[in-house]
């Protein structure tokens, strides 16, 4: 990982991939069912793609792992060998993957209403198909969508976004190149209360700089929420319409001027 000769942010204010400082990469969401999973989602942020399948709530495989008052959540993350430029197989016991999985689990444990399903188990399987930075962000957003798609009750969406600081300029939704070069953080936000469930940063950054990017990323997460919500609504609308039972209006937006649209 020799430091690149490409400028992270050039004089004209453009980043290496032609984005502006605060510009997010394009988001693509596919909510089509996958095999026998109860809910699935494929989400792409730029060139990072993660496929998420959710099973459950279902009977726990190991009785010793059941909890008498709520459902257990298990998360497994796999990485396709072809997902990075350098072909590399990661073993299941890779500490980074285990950490990613336990981060996702800890993020969703207080958000999923597990108390509704005592003794059950909810399995979340993630598979990383393409990696170009902001992996945790993509994993969390994909998991939110797959859980909603599976009809598992959540307190709210969880929307994640990454951010970094180049010299003194904050950047959003980093790609791999930027991630290697600048201090970066990932945060996850619950849009209704605008509260933070996750924030993680692993590079040196001054407290003041941190606050700036932190607040900016929180606003970006709300933008991502709009995208995710629109995808869920379109999917729900199509399904409801094809069931023909309720005459729902087939449009992605709602008309009651919801307070989340304020920005």
């Amino acid at each position, binding site marked *: 990982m020799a430091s690149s000769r490409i400028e992270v942010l050039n004089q004209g204010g453009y980043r290496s991939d032609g984005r502006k400082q605060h510009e997010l990469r394009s988001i693509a969401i596919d909510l089509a069912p996958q095999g*026998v999973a*109860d*809910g699935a989602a494929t989400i792409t942020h730029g060139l990072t793609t993660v496929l998420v399948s959710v099973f*459950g*709530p*279902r*009977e726990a495989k190991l009785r010793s792992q059941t909890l*008498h008052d709520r*459902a257990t959540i298990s998360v497994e993350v796999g990485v396709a060998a072809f997902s990075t430029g350098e072909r590399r197989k990661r073993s299941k016991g890779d500490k980074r993957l285990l950490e990613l999985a336990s981060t996702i689990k800890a993020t969703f444990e207080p958000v999923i*209403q597990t108390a509704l*399903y*005592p*003794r*059950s188990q909810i399995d979340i399987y993630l598979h990383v198909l393409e990696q170009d930075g902001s992996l945790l962000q993509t994993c969390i957003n994909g998991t939110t969508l797959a859980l*909603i*798609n*599976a*009809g*598992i*009750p*959540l*307190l*709210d*969406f969880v929307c994640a976004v990454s951010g970094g600081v180049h010299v003194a300029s904050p950047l959003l939704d980093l790609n791999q190149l930027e991630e290697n070069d600048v201090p970066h953080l990932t945060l996850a936000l*619950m*849009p*209704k209360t605008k509260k933070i469930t996750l924030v993680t940063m692993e590079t040196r950054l001054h407290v003041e700089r941190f606050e700036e990017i932190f607040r900016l990323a929180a606003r970006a997460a709300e933008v991502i929420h709009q995208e995710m*919500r629109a995808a*869920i*609504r379109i*999917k*729900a*609308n*199509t*399904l*409801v319409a*094809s*069931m*023909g*039972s*309720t*005459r*729902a209006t087939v449009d992605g937006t*709602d008309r*009651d001027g*919801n*307070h*989340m649209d304020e920005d």
Partner: protein
Amino acid sequence: MDLDDDEALNSKLTCPGEAITSSHAYMRGHGTYVDSDEVIASVAGTIERVNKLVTVRAVHTRYNPEVGDLVVGRITEVQPRRWKVDANSRQDAVLMLSSVNLPGGVQRRKLESDELQMRNFFEESDLLVAEVQAFFSDGAMSLHTRSLKYGKLRNGQLVTVPPILVRRLKSHFLTLPCGVDLILGLNGYIWVSKHVKENEQEGEEGFDAEAVYSNQNDYIEEATRSAISRVTNIISILASHFMPLTDVVLLGAYEWVVDQDYQAKDLLQEDVGDALVTAMRGRT
């Protein structure tokens, strides 16, 4: 939001985290929770209102059992005096030994020897049709097969659909004119099998233990076999297009397929499937 507009409330879609109404005026039902005096949706789906109760029905979810539901299930485990049954719900259902009819008449008492030969009645991976009898304190459902309509399944195949597509019908036992019986489990498991004539269905007197717990298929003719696969494929196609399955739709779909002279395998082609769905949409 205007709450008096019942039409709007009843047909509105919502997403997790969206406020629906005030918790003072309404009671929260399934798919919602209350936070700071607001009823908030926890699943993506349609808002439904019955009097003061607001619920959100998830578009796609696992089966939520209710007492009296007819379900098709698969035995996963044999335990002391009970079987565990996978019924597509959040936990495996329980079928107690005392909740099944044993060979030798309905009134027969349970013997200790029955506990030892439970695998003679049902063993792992057997399919059965049963009714939801009650719930345990932890929410697991208890099933019973104490009716001659219920019991082990054979002579056919299983097809799985999203549970929401199986509507509550007057009868979940359908017979199609092509000699195919259908059992629409409310849990989304559907059993498609060879038709059994009414008089062959064991009556009170002729309770045939051998037949009830038999693991052997009857002889099934070529025509019936292809009819079964055709029906199975129809169900899969309708389900993949998220069409609710009712007796009317299934009958209509089968007729359409026969009219168009499609074989079971033709239905797997995407255009045929789409044509079928379009035809069915036009009717309803």
